[in-house]
């Protein structure tokens, strides 16, 4: 609701820009202010929003409006370009044999996403298998096993054993014949030093090809700091945004990829194994800004 209002106020501001017929500082300021609000409300990092809006303002005033383009189109295009610059086209997860390690904060959706990813590879004709390296959360073993069983995905875990490193070693050994190995790990945050070290050890044993940071769409300003810490610790190859089926906009993921120079691979849109979608930058940007389809807006303009 709130976002809808914001979206339409953004569009009103953009309309004013058209009617004014030319780019003047006042109308650009108005539009940039609305864009700022939209991004802040979407949980994009405050500093990042301030830097971006400065950049947008400068470019909108300085760059010549290309012929055949109205001022509104000009500004939207700049906003879009700035956002795309940060987001990129998305992380490509190739359909080939590989090891993937899932990491992230507590409750962000790692285990669910592990089973969704396994299902994704299975549907594409590869043979995935899953290892449960979360020896910390009560019930973690049963959760992942039961999700895997539903789709007959091979699973390795050792109930009751707290030696996550040994489990990963034995799991990789046992499941070596499968194409894609996905390792689920316990939730942790940057201040839990022993858990961060455990993650580093799992990483050095498993030597995963891809390390996916799983981020809740609703995460706020902590997104940058947490992503920075995970990246510094083991490096991240890409981000998965979960729970985009609610009302959260996922701006934290933008902050995270900006902080770590990575990009987004998938989005989660529900609790079941089919609720995983390839990341589409245009749709994501539209949602962030609370506007309709940004592509068609640009094309219509």
């Amino acid at each position, binding site marked *: 609701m709130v976002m809808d209002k914001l979206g339409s106020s953004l569009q009103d501001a953009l309309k004013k820009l058209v009617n004014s017929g030319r780019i003047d500082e006042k109308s650009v300021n108005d539009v940039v202010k609305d864009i700022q609000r939209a991004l802040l*409300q979407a949980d994009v990092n*405050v500093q990042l929003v301030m830097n971006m809006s400065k950049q947008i303002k400068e470019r909108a005033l300085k760059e010549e409006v290309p012929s055949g383009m109205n001022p509104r189109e000009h500004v939207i295009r700049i906003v879009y370009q700035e956002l795309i610059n940060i987001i990129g086209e998305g992380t490509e997860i190739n359909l080939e044999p590989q090891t993937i390690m899932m990491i992230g904060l507590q*409750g962000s959706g790692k285990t669910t996403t592990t089973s969704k990813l396994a299902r994704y590879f299975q549907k594409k004709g590869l043979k995935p298998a899953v290892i449960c390296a979360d020896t910390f959360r009560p*019930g973690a073993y049963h959760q992942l096993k039961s999700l895997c069983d539903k789709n007959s995905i091979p699973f390795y875990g050792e109930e009751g054993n707290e030696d996550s490193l040994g489990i990963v070693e034995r799991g990789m050994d046992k499941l070596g014949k499968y194409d894609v190995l996905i390792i689920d790990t316990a939730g942790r945050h940057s201040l839990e030093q022993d858990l961060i070290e455990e993650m580093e050890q799992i990483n050095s044993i498993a030597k995963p090809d891809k390390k996916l940071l799983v981020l809740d769409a609703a995460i706020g*300003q902590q997104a940058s700091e*947490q992503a920075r810490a995970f990246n510094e610790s083991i490096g991240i190859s890409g981000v998965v945004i979960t729970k985009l089926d609610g009302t959260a906009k996922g701006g934290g993921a933008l902050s995270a990829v900006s902080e770590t120079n990575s990009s987004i691979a998938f989005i989660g849109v529900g609790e079941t194994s089919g609720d995983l979608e390839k990341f589409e930058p245009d749709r994501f940007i539209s949602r962030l800004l609370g506007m309709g389809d940004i592509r068609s807006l640009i094309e219509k303009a």
Partner: protein
Amino acid sequence: FKREFVLDEDDIQDTLWDLEMGLLENDIALSVSEAIVESVKNELVGTRRRIGSDTGKIVEDALKKSLYNIMSANTFDFDEYLKNAEKPVHIVFVGVNGTGKTTTIAKMANLLQNDNYSTVIAAGDTFRAGAIDQIESHANKINTKLIKHQEMGDPAAVVYDAVQYAKSRSIDVVLSDTAGRMHTNVNLMSQLEKVCRVSSPDLIIFVDEAVAGNDAVERAQQFNDNIPIDGSILTKADADSKGGAAISIAYITGKPILYLGIGQGYEDLKKFDPQWFVDQLFE
């Protein structure tokens, strides 16, 4: 020679802006930050001040006071309530996916047992894979009774059974877990309403996390609209965040924050202290 001057908008514009950015950086939702800053502005503009007083300090004090008022509105003394309430007291925990409901129930049961209350837990999340195993494992560790049904069973029936169990054995407190759900999911929200209707809980507690940003407002409002909550608990406050979501949630629901989750251990549940909370925001 005037000794006083009248504070006008220009005097405090910059300070207000800085403070608003500060609120946003601490995860207080934009709509809530704006409303708070606006009310501080209205309160201050037009008031008389002594010449030479520090406007930055005046604004900060007013803001602190306003935040403190939000956080201490409708205080609710949980301990006092429990002591006097007719037993069994039935508490249902609700919230979106993965915020920490199940873990908080285990912590709460542990806390209550330490205070010599007897507890029973209802495994009301019959939906999420492994949810029953998770809460069973907690219940075993803290040594409290668990009432559970089959996976995919009717959550209202489990909760009902737990309440009956407590009544027949004179148990003091029933703690009911529910599956995480999106506030936008109409079916799941009406299922939750049914759980609450059938078991008429004494308290409904909304669980959210300190690392949440703007969405905290949206979901707190939706939950509160669907099944009026009595208070909230904010988890993961140990994750290096100041937990501005607490302010968003208290502001939008008008209900108190009762506890903070500050870790994954059973002892990591701390009574919420509004003064401490507001002070640490400004550190």
